[in-house]
């Protein structure tokens, strides 16, 4: 025990020398600690290389693309972007996609919030079975529902409208939203609900005024996931639409098959589909780590 605190100046100096040596040994170990950064860098390179190539191509003219391989556009051109922003089928593709994605996000979150609250706070007849049934919808391959969806929406007169795609995406987005929100809601102590009710809050007022602000970040993360899965889905979106509500993804496939492939425009359109994602992930970057655990680490 007497060693734990130096008492004489000599001892202090000796301690300092040892400490110093230890620090120097640590600094010599730096190359060893650089290796993780190197590995991570390699992975990020792997992630970014295909995207870099796409961007590189989107700024080249088609003759330059087919003329030979260039790592950097020699004649920097924006012609493909100009084409997208001036051709109605192209830019309406983006508008359509964003329209049904936003509709889907609003619908999903509105019905998922009360449902998730019910699952996180109450036992009721069939709750476990219902929750499992919801998850099974997350597992349904879109290909299975292709034909029946087509027929259903055709029959009710919703074919080729934005709301049709928004409703179809509810199939997997509502269960997902409930799953994520339920995790976040369960981490809010139940005493808060009880106190609010004792204070005379009615349920709707409590829910909107107190509860929703408490799980703000959870809602943000949920919206991010809703955006993500609705934005990336193509099969249902392109089956349920023909011209009025055609998503950008199917504009891309239909244009690329006609009389040779317009690589430059395809690349530019691809780059533009990545941008909304970057924007959304930027907004939730601080909550995303928790969000990916779906509230249950």
């Amino acid at each position: 025990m007497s060693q734990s605190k130096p008492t004489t100046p000599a001892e202090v100096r000796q301690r300092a020398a040892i400490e110093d040596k230890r620090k120097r040994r640590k600094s010599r170990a730096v190359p060893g600690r650089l290796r993780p950064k190197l590995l991570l860098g390699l992975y990020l390179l792997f992630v970014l290389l295909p995207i870099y190539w796409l961007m590189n191509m989107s700024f080249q003219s088609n003759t330059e693309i087919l003329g030979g391989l260039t790592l950097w556009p020699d004649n920097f051109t924006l012609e493909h972007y100009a084409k997208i922003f001036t051709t109605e089928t192209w830019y309406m593709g983006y508008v359509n996609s964003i329209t049904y994605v936003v509709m889907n996000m609003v619908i999903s979150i509105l019905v998922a919030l009360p449902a998730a609250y019910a699952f996180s706070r109450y036992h009721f007849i069939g709750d476990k079975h219902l929750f499992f049934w919801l998850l099974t919808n997350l597992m349904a391959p879109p290909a299975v529902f292709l034909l029946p969806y087509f027929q259903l929406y055709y029959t009710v007169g919703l074919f080729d409208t934005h709301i049709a795609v928004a409703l179809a995406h509810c199939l997997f987005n509502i269960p997902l939203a409930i799953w994520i929100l339920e995790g976040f809601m369960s981490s809010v102590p139940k005493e808060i609900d009880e106190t609010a009710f004792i204070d005379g809050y009615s349920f709707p007022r409590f829910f909107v005024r107190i509860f929703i602000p408490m799980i703000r970040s959870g809602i943000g993360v949920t919206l991010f996931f809703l955006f993500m899965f609705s934005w990336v889905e193509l099969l249902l979106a392109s089956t349920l639409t023909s011209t009025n509500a055609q998503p950008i993804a199917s504009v891309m496939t239909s244009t690329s098959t006609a009389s040779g492939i317009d690589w430059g425009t395809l690349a530019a359109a691809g780059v533009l589909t990545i941008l909304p994602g970057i924007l959304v992930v930027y907004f939730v970057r601080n909550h995303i780590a928790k969000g990916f655990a779906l509230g249950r680490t």
Partner: protein
Amino acid sequence: MNKVYDNKAWLLILPMLALVAFSAIIPLMTVVNYSVQDVFDANTRFFTGTEWFVQMLNDPTLQSALLRQFAFSLTVLCIQVPLGIGIALLMPKKGWQASAVLILVTLPLLIPWNVVGSIWQIFTRGDIGLMGWGLRELGYEYNITRSTVDAWGTIIIMDVWHWTPLIALLCYSGLRSIPEAYYQAARIDRASRWAVFRYIQLPKLTNVLVIGVLLRFMHSFMIYAEPFVLTGGGPGSSTTFLSQSLTTMAIGQQDLGPSAAFSLIYFLIILLVSWVFYTAIMNMQKDKEGGA
């Protein structure tokens, strides 16, 4: 959390139930309806019972598509899970670097699936693609439209590129929930890097990993747009997975009965595997509550 028993909670569920029922139950019943009938036109149809199911289960093209699908799902899981854990361990934990790496890693998840196919199509083409051109310059005859090995390899690399971020982010969020005190205790005990991983980090990751494996299994089993754009299912039918066989049958050939039966079999396989996983999650949580 101890929940209250109250059946009024059903009222909160109802709006959601109406919507999901509209987009899940009606279409599913349509599929069931078709699967047991032979439809000639709007007025002529015959009840066939299980005939389509038997026919589909014995269909060699579908059997091989199913085998390919399992092989594909297992391969990508075996690569993505360890790789994802590794990346999560490497990701910086604070500062602007953490945000930047997080955004970069998430990027592939936010690209529409057919665009992922297009990106890799452009990237791997022999004439204009960096990877295709590069491999040729290195002396490898790389051709995804002719060589089965190349096509498979490319699709797997593409899927690793596309979906490893999901596992990485799940694990990253799992790692972030470990209190710093655990690591301090490990340092005091002079635990090795491996021991820290095995006894502190991995146990914390099991929960998120089950979710990750489940999601990855489901999505890899439903894969459609990426291989469709990249290889079109070729060469031959070597990269035709279940979804693509199904859409070809349902939309292309208009075989309503058989494709409906096939749909149900397909759905049931995913359901069965997921059910096993779901019970695993539930049991794990029960163990946790019992232990606490």
